[in-house]
């Protein structure tokens, strides 16, 4: 039988690991490498009732929700500027410049924020030199704020690009038509530009929200004890506590929550872009 490379790739690298995670979540770990493969829902019961896991899950949702909000709100004006304010021949240069932060590794960028936000970091010593500070600020590193700031910076280009593409696709004569039909610039933006950019905004939301909720490097490095997220707990369960089934359970629950939120966003975006129009002929 002929299996296409794509299907094979999807099967080996996506479907099988996913199925394995789901399967393990119903097992019990009895030793370092030993599992009791009897079907059990005990892990789910524990994951859903223990307040620690719930708190970590809620914090993850809060952090990635805020990161997404901040990133998309900041990305929109940038994408709008490049699409509407930059000469066509310079647009690709601008997009190229926006991707420059990607040239350095993600880890190095996270460490850079440590250098900037640290107790003796660039920000604190800078403010001290200027005379705005007596004592260094300690609330800016090793907490949730630092996680949000670092993630928002890291994911900015991911949010800019889809919004930019959506804005580029808008036929400029639609904006003129709106002006011609009596609407001001602001109303044209609200009634034409924004709804037509909605698919790009939804894409940006998903692209930022989905990976940030599972991020564990950033909270580990800049989050301190109060900034840890669900992914850190999953890692701990797998590698430190030798409880792979509970880790898998937390992973499955996180995945389901993300999936539900993603579907809601997709439906909302589709509505805004008029996707439902015309069903009722």
């Amino acid at each position, binding site marked *: 039988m002929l299996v296409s490379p794509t299907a094979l790739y999807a099967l080996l690298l996506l479907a099988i690991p996913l199925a394995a995670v789901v399967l393990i979540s119903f097992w019990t770990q009895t030793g370092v490498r030993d599992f009791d493969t009897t079907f059990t829902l005990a892990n789910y019961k524990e994951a859903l009732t223990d307040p620690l896991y719930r708190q970590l899950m809620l914090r993850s949702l809060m952090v990635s929700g805020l990161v997404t909000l901040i990133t998309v709100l900041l990305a929109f004006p940038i994408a709008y500027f490049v699409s509407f304010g930059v000469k066509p021949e310079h647009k690709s240069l601008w997009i190229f410049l926006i991707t420059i932060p990607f040239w350095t590794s993600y880890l190095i960028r996270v460490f850079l924020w440590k250098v900037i936000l640290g107790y003796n970091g660039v920000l604190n010593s800078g403010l001290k030199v200027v005379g705005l500070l007596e004592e260094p600020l300690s609330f800016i590193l090793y907490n949730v704020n630092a996680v949000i700031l670092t993630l928002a910076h890291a994911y900015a280009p991911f949010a800019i690009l889809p919004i930019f593409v959506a804005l580029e696709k808008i*036929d400029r*004569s*639609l904006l*003129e*038509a*709106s*002006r*011609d*039909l*009596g*609407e*001001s610039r602001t*109303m044209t933006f609200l*009634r*034409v530009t924004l*709804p*037509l950019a909605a698919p790009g905004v939804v894409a940006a939301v998903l692209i930022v929200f989905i990976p940030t909720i599972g991020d564990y490097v950033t909270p580990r490095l800049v989050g301190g004890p109060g900034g840890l997220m669900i992914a850190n707990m999953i890692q701990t369960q797998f590698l430190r506590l030798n409880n792979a089934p509970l880790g898998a359970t937390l992973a499955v629950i996180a995945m389901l929550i993300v999936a539900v939120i993603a579907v809601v966003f997709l439906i909302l975006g589709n509505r*805004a*872009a*008029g996707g439902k*129009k*015309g069903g*009722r*002929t």
Partner: protein
Amino acid sequence: MVDMTADTPLISLQNINKHYGDYHALRNINLDIRQGEFFSLLGPSGCGKTTLLRTIAGFEDYDTGYVTITGRDMRGVPANKRPTNMVFQSYAIFPHLSVIENVAFGLRKARMSKADKTQAAEAALEMVGLKGYGHRAAHALSGGQRQRVALARALVLKPKVLLLDEPLSALDRKMREQMQVELIKLQREVGITFILVTHDQEEALVMSDRIAVMFEGEIAQCDDPEVLYRNPKSKRVADFIGVMNFLPATVREEDGRYIATIAGLGETEISEAQCPGGVPVGAATVGFRPETLTLLYEGQSATHREAPAMIDEVVYYGDMTYYDVRFDGVDHPARISMRNIFGRDVLAVGTQARVNWSPGALVVFEQSA
């Protein structure tokens, strides 16, 4: 506020000039457009006709001059505050809105109830022949339907002027001809002034009360279709509107009369009226339309003047036949159109024929103009 008397033009353009960098896009445009007129801006691509339309709509700035609509100076008035509405070349139908929402788009600020707005939008749809299409998606429409939606969307606002930017160029020939007739009817019905931009001279002739022919940012001639066709002011206008044959000639003045010596046709007296651009004494060019000449068959004698010619090419169109003939001593062919009346044979290439021509149908131009 200027008093609106009957002869105040609805739109007045005075001395409009516009540059894009070094490029002189509009040159000294002076134009008055009357209330209720179907007016066309005609010219080849890049002649500035669309720029001029967009200037009236408020989408383009201009360096000098005045645009006044109903006597009001429009400088600094943005497009959303002008009593004009436009049908865009791409139709610019909002893809995220249904047909009825598209049509009602401009009614947001109108002081009427929601039900009245819907009713007005539905009436506009009915007027353009799209009754019952209100809840369709914009992307499910054909080209012709999109155009009708664009028309309804503009007309529902009851503008003083409707601006149409090449509205028919994206349609196929049959649809285009049908829409031409519908647009004329619609314009008569609503009584709104229409300004149409087109590069299609036939379309302009069919639809317009008056036409301004533009070349290189300048208005070459502004007249009603018949005058434009019969008495073009320059060779260029003559060549752009329909088909015009040209023959070299010389004009001399004798006792207050003008005598033209035309290559291949001979000598004839011409009147001043035949020289819309002024009488060109000396070297000149004589133009004539294909339908003003006829080929003479055996036994027929000339009703006006006769000239010998050789048939170079025959193009058969069913109802018409076009003959490219060469007059004696002229090296380029001239086109003659003949109606294919029953019993009249199509003549063969290479036939030595006689051509009946009438001196009164000639138009005389300066040689270079």
